[in-house]
């Protein structure tokens, strides 16, 4: 019996009715890892200081990029 089959037998135990212990672990670890990563990233992004406007550009924060106004 190889390693994968042995582990599968363990995984099939389902004390929680439908969702096995292994399934619960996989679900929690996967979702937990993703939530930790996205939380870390968003925390870093929102805790950074605002982007500095370059010194030689003085103007309103919202600058018209001329996307529509240059229509003929």
């Amino acid at each position, binding site marked *: 019996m190889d390693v994968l089959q042995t*582990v599968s037998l363990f995984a099939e135990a389902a004390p929680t009715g439908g969702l096995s212990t292994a399934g619960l672990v*996989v679900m929690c670890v996967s979702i937990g890892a993703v939530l930790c*990563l996205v939380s870390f*990233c968003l925390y*870093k992004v929102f805790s*950074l200081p605002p982007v500095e406007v370059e010194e030689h550009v003085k103007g309103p924060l919202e600058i018209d990029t001329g996307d529509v106004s240059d229509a003929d």
Partner: protein
Amino acid sequence: MANQETGGGGAGKEQWASRIGVILAVAGSAVGLGNFLRFPGQAAQNGGGAFLLPYFISLLVLGIPLCWAEWTMGRYGGTKGFNSAPGIYSMIWRNRAAKYFGAIALMIPLVIYMYYVVIEAWCLGYAIKYITGALVAADIKAEGPAGYDTFFEQFVGSGEHGANFSGGNLFLLGVVALAFVLNFTLIYRGVTRGIERFCRIAMPVMVILALIVLVRVLTLGTPDPAKPDQSVLGGLGFMWNPQFEKLGDFKTWLAASGQIFFSLSVGFGIIINYASYLRRNDDVVLSGLTSSSMNEFFEVVLGGLITIPAAFIFLGAAVGEKGTFALGFESLPNVFALMPGPALVGQLFGFLWFFMLFIAAITSSVSMLQPVIAFLEEGFGLRRHASAAILGLITLLGCGFVLYFSKGLVALDTFDFWVGSVLLFVLALIQSLLYGWAFGIKRGATEAHRGAHIRIPHFVQLMLKYVVPIYLIVVLVGFCYQNLPEYAAKISENPAALGSILFIAAVLIMLLLLVRIAGRRWEAEGRLTYDDD
């Protein structure tokens, strides 16, 4: 971030107005139907929870590194005055051939848009049908799953070619037209006022809608006492219980790699365009990681907890064999119809679900238009309204082709396989070779870390140069080995499939010619020089 200074472009160059804006835009481009429909189906069919092991390995080895490389190359090209892939690739690799590889990076989003907008219209159409109550009406509910299967087939015109243009099916055409108008309105408004502003609203709205549906699904309990196994826990178990023996099957690893690849939108030619609107010292490392992690949130957390569990609760284990469209447009409407409570409950959640899918689709589809718009503007000096009009005509033609040859969804399927799958792998391979070998990982690391708020481990650069290309080749060969015979046979057996291939070839030839003309303009303007000059 909002300023008009550039690294070399002309006046009025577009740029992202905020750090979170570009992150949400890239995340919006990546998050789509695949997160909610393809991922759960792939996981359920390929070992359940065990699928997550090759999935996360692929994310770390393939997905995130390729993402970083694409962000880096895009920003670099932008500082050199180019926003389109042909120009950016020419800056990365100072060779006359480079720009022609960029034609592939234009073709992929262009052709994918032609059928993706149709799928987007399906989502919007279904959302409208839920508002009107058509999908929870007594007659369709009485027919059970077969009723929803038939509804979908009639709705998309998969019974025969031209069905969507016959008198009884003009609703879909109207919704497609509406989707077109919405897409082009957003793209016409530009990067800052259109795409960024929309994504800043759309992405949080998507999260809220998905969370509402998630709470509903996780509180369903056991709706049918006669089927105690078909419960929330049973559904979660069906999705997450690991079948470790599947890890010994190459198909599982192939499916996981492919899913990561398609999910993160690397190799689409979109990230490289979006990143080109960054300034020279804007961060790409944290931004790239953030947008990738947001995609994973929608996929693993929301997609993993909603779709398969909900479908399993009402329909049982058979849902595990369903493909993306069958799961999304046949099984799930059945689920909403069977939800406990008055019909209004299913109507509400059905609307929320399909409207969320529509928003996910439109944030993706609008990103597919921007690369070609950028090329037409900088390659030919066209203004936005002219480039939008030309692009509108081209995509309308392609969309019409997909809508007409709808029997068995053959045109859509053919476009999706050859361009949305095979060519995607090819472009990702090209980009990894450009970054690792033409640009160089030393220069790439320096460029990536310019303005970066987190560091990329050095081994990632080595992986990009040596491991990722080999990994991609293995995945591409495996994917082709598994699927190519079937699709190659279709070309000879099905005239519509052959016609779709010819259409793709015509688009490619057109783009190659346009790139040649644009390249000559750039050379004449002195914007393009080569190593052999």
